[in-house]
């Protein structure tokens, strides 16, 4: 009896974690995968018929949206890195005692609903909104110039919404740069620029790697920004999935699209980690 209990103890110990994983990860994933291979409709119910055509149909219909999502995600990530690096750098090296205040300010927009924040950008970017009406009245842009319902609006929205996801890992990486290493660089005849390019930037790369993943994945699968800020030509794959699942109620197509998106992103991350050296990315993710 004692022996048995000792043998079973480890299994009891992993039970809470195991249950958590089963309920929130394994069951939903398996459900999603099985739905993607079903046929039928909402009224008659769905049968698992191993209908792999769901995938080929979905891909051949929606590949432009897939491609667009990857492009928008990439654009938002590049823009995001360019914007967050100075912010993170400034907080890490010049923040002084107020570092936590500044980080809190970076996170502050998260206290407002994601959708509301995006809608406020709609107002901001609209044809007679805060940004364009002064420019138009000054004659700097033509009267029929507009940003809303263009690619620019969607990419700007994506960049804005996911900015903190890059700022935070970048900040952590920069904060960890030993100030004595920076001093050593200047002691060894490096000026400010050389110290940045040869020492600080290379040491912050793990943060850049982590930021790219944390930004690109949600940005590429976003379904809000394209809906609110984009036009009919800016539809991203997230919106299609949402539409198929909630409005058309074609669950097999929706889940097939989701699976492709998930698989594609996973393969992408894997290749990315491989290319950069797994250790660096895992190290960055572990921070």
């Amino acid at each position, binding site marked *: 009896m004692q022996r048995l209990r000792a043998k079973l103890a480890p299994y009891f110990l992993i039970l809470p974690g195991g249950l958590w994983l089963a309920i929130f990860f394994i069951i939903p994933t398996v459900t999603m995968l099985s739905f993607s291979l079903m046929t039928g409709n909402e009224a008659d119910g769905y049968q698992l018929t191993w209908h792999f055509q769901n995938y080929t149909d979905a891909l051949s219909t929606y590949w432009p949206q897939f491609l667009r999502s990857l492009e928008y995600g990439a654009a938002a990530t590049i823009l995001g890195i360019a914007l967050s690096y100075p912010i993170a750098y400034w907080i890490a090296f010049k923040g002084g005692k107020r570092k936590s205040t500044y980080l809190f300010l970076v996170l502050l927009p998260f206290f407002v609903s994601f959708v509301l924040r995006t809608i406020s950008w709609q107002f901001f970017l609209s044809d007679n909104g805060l940004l364009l009406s002064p420019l138009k009245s000054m004659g700097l842009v033509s009267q029929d110039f507009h940003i809303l319902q263009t690619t620019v609006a969607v990419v700007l929205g994506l960049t804005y919404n996911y900015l903190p996801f890059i700022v935070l890992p970048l900040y952590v990486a920069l904060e960890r740069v*030993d100030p*004595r*290493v920076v*001093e*050593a*660089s*200047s*002691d*060894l*005849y*490096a*000026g400010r620029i*050389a110290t940045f390019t*040869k*020492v600080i930037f*290379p*040491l912050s790369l793990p943060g850049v790697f982590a930021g790219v993943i944390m930004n690109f994945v949600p940005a590429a699968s976003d379904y809000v920004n394209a809906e609110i800020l984009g036009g009919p030509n800016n539809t991203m794959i997230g919106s299609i999935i949402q539409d198929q699942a909630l409005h058309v109620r074609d669950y097999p197509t929706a889940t097939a699209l989701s699976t492709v998106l998930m698989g594609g992103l996973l393969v992408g991350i894997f290749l990315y980690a491989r290319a950069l050296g797994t250790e660096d990315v895992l190290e960055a993710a572990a921070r």
Partner: protein
Amino acid sequence: MTDTLPAIELVGIVKSFTSHGEIVQAVKGVDMKIAEGEFFSMLGPSGCGKTTTMRMIAGFDEPTAGEVYLHGNNVTGVPPNKRDVNMVFQSYALFPHMSVFENIAFGLNRKGIAKDEVTRRVGEMLDIVDLGGREKRKPKELSGGQQQRVALARALVNKPRALLLDEPLAALDLKLRQAMQVELKRIQREVGITFVFVTHDQGEALTMSDRIAVMSNGVVEQLGTPREIYERPATKFVAGFIGTSNLLSGTVSEVIDGHAVIAYGPEERVLVAVQNGQVIAGSEVELTVRPEKMELSANAPHGTDCAVRGTVTEVVYLGTSTNYNVRTSSGADVVVFTQNATSADDLAVRGDSIWLSWEPRHSYAIGAPS
């Protein structure tokens, strides 16, 4: 350029910081001249201002007042990358993303030195610090001692006017530290560069240095050769900080022939050399005697001018030597080290009444006489 110019000269260096709204003076007027090719140590407890002083030589901190000269050139206000000194950091501060080779080549590359010369000089340096064959390793793949040598090579390869070392051995274990002390001394002789060494370890400073500046509370307490500092501590602080010192005090009964005589009792008296006219009968003096200069005997010694009575309070047998704690008749607690050259039967035991004696040239008056 003449050779008489000091490698480093500090003139009236003051450094104050603001901490919690209060101004704190970390360095309070330091003047020193460090000669070309010298192994110079700044020794003191933490917070004495030695590291701050070194950082001002390197250019990481600027003095609040005073000037820094390198080979006669005033470099006050010149950024560190434009000063011809290099530093070895306490934590080594190696570039973690670069190989050993890239770390060592960093300074040469910044100076725009031709590639094959960089390769040659780095190779030479790797030989000097005994790291040949490890140039492709990353710093984290090296042991503490090896990292230390990379840090040294990275600084020395630039052939700086002076090398600044900030407690470079503090992170090493005792055995490695002792080996590195010898190694550092060898390297310094080999390259002939001025070394400025900051340490809180008096043993380290005594073994390695040509000259030592003992610092405390932002001022230089004494500057001299290891022998001078050990044998003739100028202040109470130096006497206490370097080695073990016995402190005696008393009232001068008379001054004869440049020596103040302190009489404690019948046959108990101590002589100490004083400057003429500075000490008169009746004034209080403090003096130090090193523990190994004192001799312990059961009976009143003959023919010595310094002798006091005491009671043994503790005996610590250490194999080659024995340490005795003795309370003198005047109430001072002193320590005596004796070599165990003769038979162990001669050892005094706790509670014994004994005599302590030494030669007058081994007692030093310290501080300003009152």
